[in-house]
């Protein structure tokens, strides 16, 4: 077990860059009849924030995004994370860069820079700033099925899974009927970093959603297939339900917001408001909450911000 590698796992939720799907920022919105593969590509586009030149989940005063993990025995842990993504690279070699900085707990001051390359055969580069050692370490790309940060999400769930890793089937279109999940005991409670945790989101009820069944191509995988609810206009995936041997084993709900007063006309220019996940085999729950006030996009940050130099200058 490599302790340094373990740090990589904690960044995954906020690091939605990096992968080698042949999907670019120029992916057009589909027209006419749409099939499962097209929907999967659009979902990938939305989840990787390709509609933005750059996108930040920053710290603003005492407010910052927080990840909460709740074990089946009720114990709760939390971590504050800052994140900056840059999709706007004129260099032909680099597709995007993503910087995450931990702002609480034992990992306070730890930073990670992930570089994704245009070349599909080139794996991602992971650079980790270890404040205790004051050194940068480089690592290989983590496994898809690896859980991260003690949460119920896997690297595949949040960043690494690509449309071509699964076969996709459109089940149909229907209305979203139910509210998105939360950790019930913490719902609407005062909480450090976000002032107060949100209530369950029922805003998406009655929106039209595609049912997308995605069957994994990996053998002996932890799930057989998953069904996602995908907004028919914005391609936000509100819910994903995982099945193994015919049994429901995991649910992930994502609340999405549209950037207000945006000059980004793309309907897919959305941001995460929260992620909720529950592993039904263990009862463990995870909830990532991103207050809208910490979101910034298309800022004039220089590309040099996404560099080793920034990692080395992180204050603990």
């Amino acid at each position: 077990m490599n302790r340094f590698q373990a740090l990589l796992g904690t960044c995954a939720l906020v690091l939605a860059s990096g992968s080698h799907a042949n999907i670019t920022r120029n992916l057009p919105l589909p027209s006419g009849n749409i099939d499962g593969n097209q929907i999967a590509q659009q979902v990938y586009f939305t989840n990787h924030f390709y509609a933005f030149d750059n996108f930040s989940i920053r710290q603003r005063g005492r407010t910052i995004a927080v990840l909460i993990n709740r074990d089946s025995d009720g114990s709760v842990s939390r971590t504050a994370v800052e994140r900056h993504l840059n999709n706007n690279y004129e260099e032909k070699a680099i597709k995007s860069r993503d910087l995450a900085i931990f702002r609480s707990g034992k990992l306070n001051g730890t930073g990670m820079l992930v570089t994704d390359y245009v070349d599909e055969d080139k794996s991602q580069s992971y650079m980790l700033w270890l404040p205790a050692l004051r050194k940068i370490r480089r690592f290989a790309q983590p496994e898809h099925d690896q859980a991260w940060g003690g949460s119920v999400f896997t690297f595949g769930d949040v960043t690494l899974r690509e449309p071509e890793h699964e076969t996709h089937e459109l089940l149909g279109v229907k209305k979203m009927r139910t509210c998105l999940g939360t950790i019930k005991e913490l719902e609407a409670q005062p909480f450090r970093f976000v002032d107060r945790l949100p209530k369950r989101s029922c805003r998406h009820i009655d929106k039209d959603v595609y049912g997308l069944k995605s069957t994994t191509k990996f053998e002996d995988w932890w799930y057989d297939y998953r069904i996602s609810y995908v907004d028919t206009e914005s391609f936000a995936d509100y819910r994903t339900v995982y099945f193994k041997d015919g049994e429901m084993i995991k649910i992930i709900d994502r609340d999405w917001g549209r950037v207000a007063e945006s000059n980004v006309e793309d309907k897919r220019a959305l941001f995460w408001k929260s992620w909720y996940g529950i592993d039904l085999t263990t009862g463990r729950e995870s909830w990532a909450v991103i207050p809208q006030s910490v979101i910034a996009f298309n800022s004039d940050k220089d590309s040099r911000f996404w560099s080793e130099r920034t990692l080395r200058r992180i204050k603990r």
Partner: protein
Amino acid sequence: MRKMGWTSYLMGGHLILTFAGTLHAADTSYIAAVKADLAEFKTGAFTLSESNAWQRSQQASESDGTASLADFETFVKRKFRGTYILFTRLPDWKKNQIWQDYVSTGDLGGIRSNIYAARSKKDTTSQRSSLSNLPLDF
């Protein structure tokens, strides 16, 4: 089965070894709601107990203001009493714009600032600045 690798050791997480297919103490009403919602893809019908708290009808007792413009007005009146007075003085198209913005973003703080912006001189100025060669008191 999914690996619970080294990442679990950090962040205060605990290594979970209980991977047996048992359903632990999750919110059963939430699971039931998800199953009912999912079943609609197969059956074409959505059936869920009315007492289930994960559907809109159960949220109606405390509306979130997204259902309609009238619902939004009631919501603003309840949440922001002072701002509501300003809201009532806005033209319908501006009310509708603020409501639409809230529905799409879900931002509570945005309601108040959008109402102020809709009432403020800044808003008037920005409209006027799109025109040219007009006196300031136009």
